[in-house]
């Protein structure tokens, strides 16, 4: 994934599974993660297959993550400075 338009929004640092990642404030968290190369967001329940954001509009629920301790859909969550994101680790 790659941003192709000029982006003046502030760059902020967020934590993802303990790693610091740079992202644009207000970006969709799902997009921010993909821009940082993090496409795999969970493992499927039976096969343990890699899964990531699919619909980017809040329907498919593939992008549900822990954000600051609460379960949120990454594609519906705007990036905020200092946000702490954890991949679920639960099928």
């Amino acid at each position, binding site marked *: *994934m*790659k*941003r*192709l*338009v*000029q*982006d*003046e*929004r502030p760059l902020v640092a967020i934590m993802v599974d303990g790693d610091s990642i740079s992202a644009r*404030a*207000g*970006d*969709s968290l799902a*997009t921010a993660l993909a*821009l940082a190369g993090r*496409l*795999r*967001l969970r493992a*499927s*329940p*039976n*096969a343990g*297959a*890699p*899964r*990531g*954001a*699919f*619909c*980017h*509009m*809040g*329907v*498919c*629920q*593939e992008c*549900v993550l822990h954000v600051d301790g*609460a*379960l949120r859909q990454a594609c*519906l969550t*705007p990036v905020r400075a200092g946000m702490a994101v954890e991949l679920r680790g639960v099928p």
Partner: protein
Amino acid sequence: MTHDLIVLGAGPAGANAAMTASQAGLKVALLDEQDGAGGQVWRQPLPGLTGLPVSAEARSGDALRARIAASKVDLRFGRRIWSVGGGFRVDALGPQGNETVEAPSLIAATGAHERVVPFPGWTLPGVIGLAAATVLIKSQGVTPGRKVVVAGCGPLLVAVAAGILKLGGDVAGIVDLAGRRDWLAALPSLATQPRLLGRGLGWAVKIGAARVPLHFGHAVKAAQGEQALERIVIAPVGGDGAYASGAEMTFEADALCIGHGLVPGAEVTKLLRAEHRFDRLRGGFVPVLDAYGRTTVERLFACGDGAGLRGAIIAEQAGRLAGLTAAHDAGALPADRFAQIADPILAAISRARPFSDAMAGIMALRPAQVAAIAPETVVCRCEDVTRSEIDAAHEAGAHDLNQLKHFTRCGMGPCQGRMCGDVAAELLASKVGSRERAGYWTGRPPLRPVPFDALMGAFDYSDIPIPEPAPL
């Protein structure tokens, strides 16, 4: 009652419904999960992202947002609607927790969502929907990858490919289920909307100029990669969507944008137990409506793609009509005035029908494509249920969709059967005889998953209205 009318969904249909009813004197609440009006088709850009290219759609969206802001409609954005009860009561999670609005009339304008007919590897990270791609391109200024393949069927194919090119990105190929002939056959109907056809042709020219490889009459047979998409395999298909003889081709790709039409999100009308019928052209089970948008439930109306796929132009008009009808039925608009305003709208809808039907036809689910799904392919993403498990469940006695759910967990995951439902129903229908027999998921709350925390709000144990003890 807090309002005279509640409108659910602020896309072209809902926003227009709300404004029209408000102009007729009703006190209207308009609820949407997004932060502003526009729905999916006219989604507003991310705040602060100013570098996005200008487009006709963006202008339409901005115009809508300006009009709604200037109206008297009670705007409730950022609301996740989770419960709709008869009479009508709507519960939604907003910034302050759970909110309730009540009104004697309700308009459901909840839009449509992506349909993707599964194929091996479609669940790999890097594979996204076509509508998903438009979100990334139009409101976020992002291209899905460096080597993007756009595939599936319908008008979104061209729109997405052109959108990526317009941003300055590359499209590695377009894989269209339809053949050139199918598009040519649709041309006369598409020509009834010259402006839209012109826009589409402009996209086609752009794609041609960029020399994007075009593969008509082909489908993605498989997506492959370890942790994410690395390559795709495409194969020729017949007019019905089933694989045909001919060479397969493999391409490197790091992003696949794929979609096979849209499914109407008729969850609110199903929840309220309105009568529905199966309409393949309109995308699936849709509420039974009269010409004005009335459902079989008193004072419940539906419009826009959520009530059956008709596209944005008809959505706007149907929205105005539903708002008008709601106002009339509530006694706010005398019959002659109502007819005066409604008749031109009905005429506009009629004129837009050929284009709308042609588009819907290109996007409609092809049964042969579903029949061709390989056995080990995941159909229900949430619960990892494969096609062969669905077939086995039918053998074991599951003859309708709700029964299938009990046998396999297909549809029990958090997407609530939205991603898999249409395809699972089509698989069952091929065995039980019809989509009507296969049925649809029973409508239940919550309309979307909602966090317990937000639902409950702050409370003390003594606040809980515990009923009388069970008999001993």
